[in-house]
């Protein structure tokens, strides 16, 4: 039927689920680089001297969450690369909504 000029307004309600994943890195973990560019040319995986010193910290740029089948499900990018501290634990918190 034709309707008179009418405006209807309401608030819709929905539930979302916020998932928080804490990725903990102990002080002795992730403190060497696996970047292929750090491998000496012609060597069998030997790293350049520049990345083996005690002052070297690899930088984390991305966190990926994988399932048991090794399928990438979630990717989180840092705003700026984060240096992995050599002597301190660090926890990265990944949040996503479903």
């Amino acid at each position, binding site marked *: 039927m034709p*309707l*008179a000029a*009418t*405006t209807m*307004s*309401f608030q819709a*309600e929905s539930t979302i689920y*916020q998932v928080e994943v804490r990725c903990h890195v102990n002080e002795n973990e992730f403190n060497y680089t696996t*970047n292929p560019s750090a491998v000496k040319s012609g060597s069998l995986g030997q790293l350049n001297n520049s990345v083996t010193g005690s002052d070297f910290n690899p930088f984390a740029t991305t966190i*990926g969450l994988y399932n048991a089948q090794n399928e990438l499900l979630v990717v989180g990018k840092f705003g700026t690369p984060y240096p992995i501290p050599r002597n301190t634990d660090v926890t990265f918190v990944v949040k996503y909504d479903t």
Partner: protein
Amino acid sequence: MGRSYNTLKASDVTVTPVKLKYSASYYSSTFGPGSINVLTGSNGATSPTGSYPDSFLLYRSMRNRFYMQYISGSLLGSASAYEWFPQSTAATGTNDDDNRYFPTDPTSTINVITVPKANFGENIAKGSFKIKASSSIFNTVDDGNGNLVAESNHTIHVGNIFYPQGLAVITNPDYQAMFTVASTGGGGFTYPSGLIAAYDPAINVTSGIGGVVTSWGNWVSGAPVGTNLLVSTPTGANILPPVYVSNLINGKPGIKIQDSQTPTYLTGYVTQSLGFYATLPFNTYGPSFPTAITVIYVANIPSNTIPAASSGIITPFYMASGPKYFGTKIVSSSAGYIQTSFSDSSISPAVYQELDYSTNVLGSPPYGVSPYIISQTVSYGPTPLISGQINNTNESVTINLGTSPVVGSFNSIMTFFMGAGSLSAGSTIGTNFGEILIWSRQLSLTEIASVKNYLYTKYSITP
């Protein structure tokens, strides 16, 4: 770039539910199948010839699903056997309970508003539902307990809302009119009965409504835009102009009443410049006089109508050359008062206004001018009277009270004037009328709403 791995434990993951609310508004032009929809359910014969009408099936499904427990004589064995989807857990009588009423008369109707799941999510948030109707008297809200109530008065029960189902049911028959609109154009709209005078430039209805002869003063129908119209006063004196044909009601045909000192023939002080008038065919004395009159018109007043320096009285709507006829009889009706509403003519751009000149039919005026309400009873005869003149002086409304007695000479006709007034030098008035309708009775809220909706649509006015 390299990658390193670690394995997460279950304790590293936390899942938190978050309730989201998001607001949205929907205009009736978007309503329809597949979207928010307004359907009408109607009671009817339980054994019709042929198949059941959809409206009957809707009526029955709503009744059986949500209201059966409240209907006397239902076949339910017990209340507990019935899932009635309560929207409030408050006890009956606490004012927070979920009140259900369902009309069961053979001709009863309901409106059902269906909202798709995609629009409301898990449920409509309690206390958030609102209907802004074309006429504010029908504005409806939900009270958070499953009841739809009038926005202006929460004791008026309009219907029910079922939040998780996205359904709203309008059971109050008065409020079903909020969705009613007539077909547009020409004579497609059927006016409520009792119409005794109408000016409608689109269909050139100037007289003869309902078999009653009505005259409009010197009206020229179908004249081109810009045509000056001679207008005669009841005494036969012509005034030139002030009326010409215009297209100023959103481009729809209308007339403009223009009083001004600019024309050289209007010198000095202009008094009683009459726009046009209708002579209504009933006797002010005697049984044929109606106990109430309803006048509804569409008009706008440009923002520069009345210069600030003017001391003139502008009267876009003026009733009776004498001060007695109208007020005497209207307030002697059982209803007992007149309610009027004018908009603030200083608002720019020009605003549209309606005048329902009957009893207790208008809600609050939309533009902030409080209606002037007279609630006295005036008996017929030489007692205090209402003069019948409504003056709109820029932004106020005044109804003059008089004390003159009714005398026998005012006994033949009632005359309505549009655009009458007294103007000081330099004053101008430019009221545009699109349509004027007069009934010899008080219209119901539903009838008034139907007329308003018709006019809103016809003149492209957003209420």
